[in-house]
């Protein structure tokens, strides 16, 4: 699949932002007054920034409000609704802390759960697609939740949680890669079932329908840069998981913590780029590209 910058930025930043809101909502940190304002501002910068980035890949963003209507069937719509409700509930919780120096614990808990559900809905936009066997796996939502939790705990300075969640997320990432690499082969779809003309060994794409390229090939049969996939995977694990763990194990310092956060975000960007670039859509079968 085409790794659109807007979607990579969206899933990475909003994952971290809602992860932060989850830990703040649970009361892991209870800042008050100006400090609370700064904490919430950072969390909203990430979550709202990511959501705004997601609208950049829309061809008609002026109609984006319509996307809140189809929550009965569409995970994308659910994601939109959940994110707005989560942000509103957490804004109420934040207002209590900032202006009244009062903690409405239950509002925070509800906000935390909604934040987590938002990340889950984001992951289901991809995990629901039967057409991309690599994504359609239980490990996809778990990995998204893992990254959100790891990023959120790292950002809110929960060292013990961050260490545990980073390690867990590393394992979930490995699981997602391992299961994903064989997914297309196991999906039962091949050029034989796509055309109905025989077994995969008997059918060969002889001539494409057009001399140029097209939307389908650009969007869903993206293969550029896959040759670096192995190295990028290692880099992503080292930057996203390994280095932050080492930095957290060292004696605590703000500079080290900041470095851990920057390294983690770079690693998650790499992981998300691979998530899209390596995903094989079954329509590629019609073009003999799988």
């Amino acid at each position, binding site marked *: 699949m085409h790794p659109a910058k807007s979607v990579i930025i969206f899933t990475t930043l909003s994952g971290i932002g809602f992860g932060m809101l989850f830990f703040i909502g649970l009361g892991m940190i209870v800042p008050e007054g100006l400090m609370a304002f700064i904490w919430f501002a950072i969390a909203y910068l990430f979550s709202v920034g990511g959501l705004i980035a997601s609208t950049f890949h829309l061809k008609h963003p002026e109609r984006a409000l319509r996307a809140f209507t189809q929550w009965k069937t*569409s995970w994308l719509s659910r994601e939109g609704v959940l994110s707005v409700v989560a942000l509103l509930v957490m804004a109420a919780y934040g207002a209590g802390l900032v202006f009244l120096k009062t903690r409405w614990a239950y509002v925070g808990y509800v906000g935390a759960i909604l934040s987590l559900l938002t990340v889950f809905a984001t992951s289901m936009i991809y995990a*629901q697609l039967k*057409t991309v066997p690599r994504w359609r796996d239980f490990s996809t939502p778990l990995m998204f939740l893992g990254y959100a939790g790891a990023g959120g705990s790292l950002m809110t300075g929960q060292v013990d949680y961050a260490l545990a969640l980073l390690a867990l997320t590393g394992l979930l990432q490995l699981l997602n890669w391992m299961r994903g690499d064989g997914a297309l082969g196991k*999906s039962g779809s091949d*050029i034989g079932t796509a055309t109905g*003309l025989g077994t995969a060994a008997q059918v060969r*794409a002889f001539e494409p329908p057009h001399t140029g390229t*097209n939307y389908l090939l650009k969007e*869903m049969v993206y293969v550029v840069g896959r040759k670096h996939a192995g190295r990028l995977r290692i880099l992503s694990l080292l930057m996203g998981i390994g280095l932050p763990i080492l930095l957290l194990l060292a004696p605590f310092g703000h500079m080290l913590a900041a470095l851990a956060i920057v390294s983690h975000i770079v690693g998650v960007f790499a992981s998300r780029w691979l998530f899209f670039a390596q995903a094989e859509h079954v329509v590629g079968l019609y073009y003999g590209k799988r």
Partner: protein
Amino acid sequence: MTQLPQSTDRKLGLVIDLDTCVGCHACVISCKGWNTENYGAALSDTDAYGPDVSGTFLNRVHSYEVKPETGPAQLIHFPKSCLHCEDAPCVTVCPTGASYKRTADGIVLVNEDACIGCGLCAWACPYGARELDATAGVMKKCTLCIDRIYNENLPEEDQIPACVRTCPAGARHFGDFADPNSNVSKLTAERGGMDLMPEQGTRPTNKYLPPRPKDCSGEINTLAPLLEPVATDGKGFVGWLDKMLSALPGGNA
């Protein structure tokens, strides 16, 4: 709304005969022509006369080589457009309700005024039947020529999809699959009409008729004995000429 109807009154769709299709692409052109000049946003081309040609099409013809276990290989031309699935995954993923399946006839359509151009429906379709138009920024797909099949201003013979009307080989058939006595239902039953990627669970309405097995007499190449290579042990003038030519630069002596 993006909830799929439980069932539809009629199931309009196409039967595509892979045995008959000659791969002329006339259906591609008539589709592009009709759907550019009529309902909805035009099917745009970008860099149409440049080196990086690209354009939106609702119907494309692939060609496949099929090598059966016995007998010679076959070339199969394979037109592909929206299959108007009963469990259309493109409809349920739509966040805005722009994509919908009609209860009356089962046609899957896009309300272009409500489409935000997110592209998720194209991701959800296993067949590559939806293309986001680069100029209009809305999702385009086969409408089964909804502006022809119900258009009483057209002569009756033209009230069928443009691709079916134009096919010179008679490889495309339009009808109602909900009626067991319709032309398309009968063809499907007689010729073993099949679904594409049934494992995707989309339950396509359109059916493909497999190519008929080719006759095989065992002596296909009747002229082969006459095409035996010229004797290599040439004598006399031919032998001398062969030797001389081979000795020239570029020869194989």
